């Protein structure tokens, strides 16, 4: 049973599971896990790859036609640095897609909303397909949409924390009012979290740590694949409404209508 494809900018995705390349115990294992995940969009940190090296260990494991690269700007602290890094990534990795992440705070890696908005506006003008990593801030997401980003990537919980959808209330608002796809990024620690995000209408999720650091990354990647598919199918199938209250025998407030 198939679900609706996801369209971001000029590209159509069958898989709604986006993945990352960090924290794996080897590049070969990373490759195997990414293939098992069915993912079609893989983010890679510019700082981790040697773009001058045609045989770079990470990049050479990502040479598969279905794996599109989403370079990210991890490490930059300002809009100015992000724009510079983005241009370098575009040239070196031959894609104008960009995961914009600006976290001047190296401890929790939380995104800077002011610099992110500034950089997004400039990068869109420079012709990038911008996917910004942001707090689950509905107003910020609308502001980013207004400057032309291709999707928004609000966080579920602090990056790498595996704590799940701690920002659920705000994600619901973002999903409810967004005109661009919403990708829940960061904090997803279990397939059930991913399924929950899709069930509530998120267009996709991005998962890295939960796969890379799992006991068996390849099996976990497959588990996420199934969870994301199930979540999306459930969303499209319309969940039955939960039963709110038990029926009551007497109707003290409406009996006069009888």
């Amino acid at each position: 049973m198939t679900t609706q494809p996801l369209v971001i900018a000029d590209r159509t995705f069958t898989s709604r599971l986006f993945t990352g390349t960090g924290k794996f115990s080897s590049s070969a294992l990373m490759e195997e896990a990414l293939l098992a995940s069915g993912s079609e969009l893989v983010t890679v940190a510019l700082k981790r790859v040697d773009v001058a090296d045609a045989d770079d260990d990470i990049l050479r494991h990502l040479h598969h036609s279905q794996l599109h690269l989403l370079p990210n700007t991890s490490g930059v602290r300002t809009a100015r640095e992000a724009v510079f890094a983005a241009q370098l990534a575009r040239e070196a990795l031959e894609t104008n897609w960009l995961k914009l992440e600006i976290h001047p705070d190296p401890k929790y890696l939380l995104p800077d909303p002011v610099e992110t908005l500034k950089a997004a506006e400039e990068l869109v003008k420079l012709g990038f397909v911008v996917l910004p990593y942001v707090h689950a801030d509905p107003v910020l997401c609308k502001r980013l949409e207004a400057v032309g980003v291709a999707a928004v990537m609000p966080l579920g919980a602090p990056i790498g924390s595996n704590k799940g959808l701690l920002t659920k209330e705000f994600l619901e608002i973002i999903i409810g009012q967004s005109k661009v796809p919403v990708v829940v990024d960061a904090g997803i620690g279990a397939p059930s979290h991913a399924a929950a995000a899709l069930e509530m209408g998120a267009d996709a999720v991005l998962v890295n740590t939960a796969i890379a650091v799992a006991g068996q990354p390849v099996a976990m990647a497959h588990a996420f694949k199934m969870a994301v598919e199930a979540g999306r199918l459930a969303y499209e199938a319309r969940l039955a409404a939960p039963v709110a209250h038990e029926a009551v025998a007497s109707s003290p407030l409406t009996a006069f209508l009888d």
Partner: protein
Amino acid sequence: MSFRPVFEAHPWDAVQASIYAKTAADVERALAAPRRTLDDFKALVSPAAAPYLEQMAQLSHRLTRRRFGNTMQLYVPLYLSNECQNICTYCGFSLDNKLKRRTLSSVEMLAEAAVLKGWGYDHVLLVTGEANQTVGVDYLEKALKTLRPHFAHLSMEVQPLDQADYERLIPQGLNTVLVYQETYHQADYKTHHPKGKKSNFYYRLDTPDRLGRAGIHKMGLGVLIGLEDWRTDCFYTALHLDYLEKTYWQTKYSLSFPRLRPAEGLLQPKVEMSDRELVQLICAYRLLNEEVELSLSTRETPAFRDQAIKLGITSISAGSKTNPGGYAVEPESLEQFEISDERSPADIAAMLRRQGYEPVWKDWDAALA
């Protein structure tokens, strides 16, 4: 604003007494806490925590993997000079030590760099003694400019500088500065640093503040273990880190815990730290701070390093030489201290892979600064 008032609010004797007064109940509370405080850290480095070492190690391993994944950063020191105007009782480069003094030229730096590049390194740590006439800020600037095109990440472990000097060097490609207090015990500090600019305790203590104000990307802290009671000294490191993280929140931090090694004609450690105690310290740092980088050098033995990497460490060196010119130019010159782990970078990388870790050679890019 500086660390000094925070430091002065914590007198050594009181801190030491409070650490040694910690009980098993304090340790258990610290282990169970969702977010640990400096007081919890005291319990974790106290003698009372010794029976809980396995539990600490398991927690530390888990937390480190969650944050840093199955990866290990590799770096290597590049000694540029052994000229030094300081007397440090424990150091091979001390002014009163008779050895041939040498400072690398740009051509020699590049020869050394070529060897390190050949081994796969992209992160190097530049090291000098303190000799302002020959290895002052002009020399350091020249070194950064010379080496910047060849490496992704440049760190520096040299004399403490003024804020303006750091502001001058950072745009030349300086990413990280390591500045170890050696000891936070003021009287003992004087004993070990009787002469030279380094004898000024507070100038050194304020260095991380000057680095923070200059906007450095990353700084490394630590004490030289063996000079004083390590539990107390390392509490001050933790206190310093806590202050710095809150004050310079855009800077990244790393910690080191070098144990005093025998060097040519020098003092033996006043306090010996056992392997068990070093593991206790590594785990205590990790349990206090899940994000801080923990670095382990070739001062430690292969047997210890092979096990310790699983317990909280995030970066290690390999193939290190601690003499200027040691890689290519003049391999036979006298070293600053003896290396215990002489395995090659390729051997260390293979050891890491065998244990399920991906050796990371590059995790920065000159374009990002």
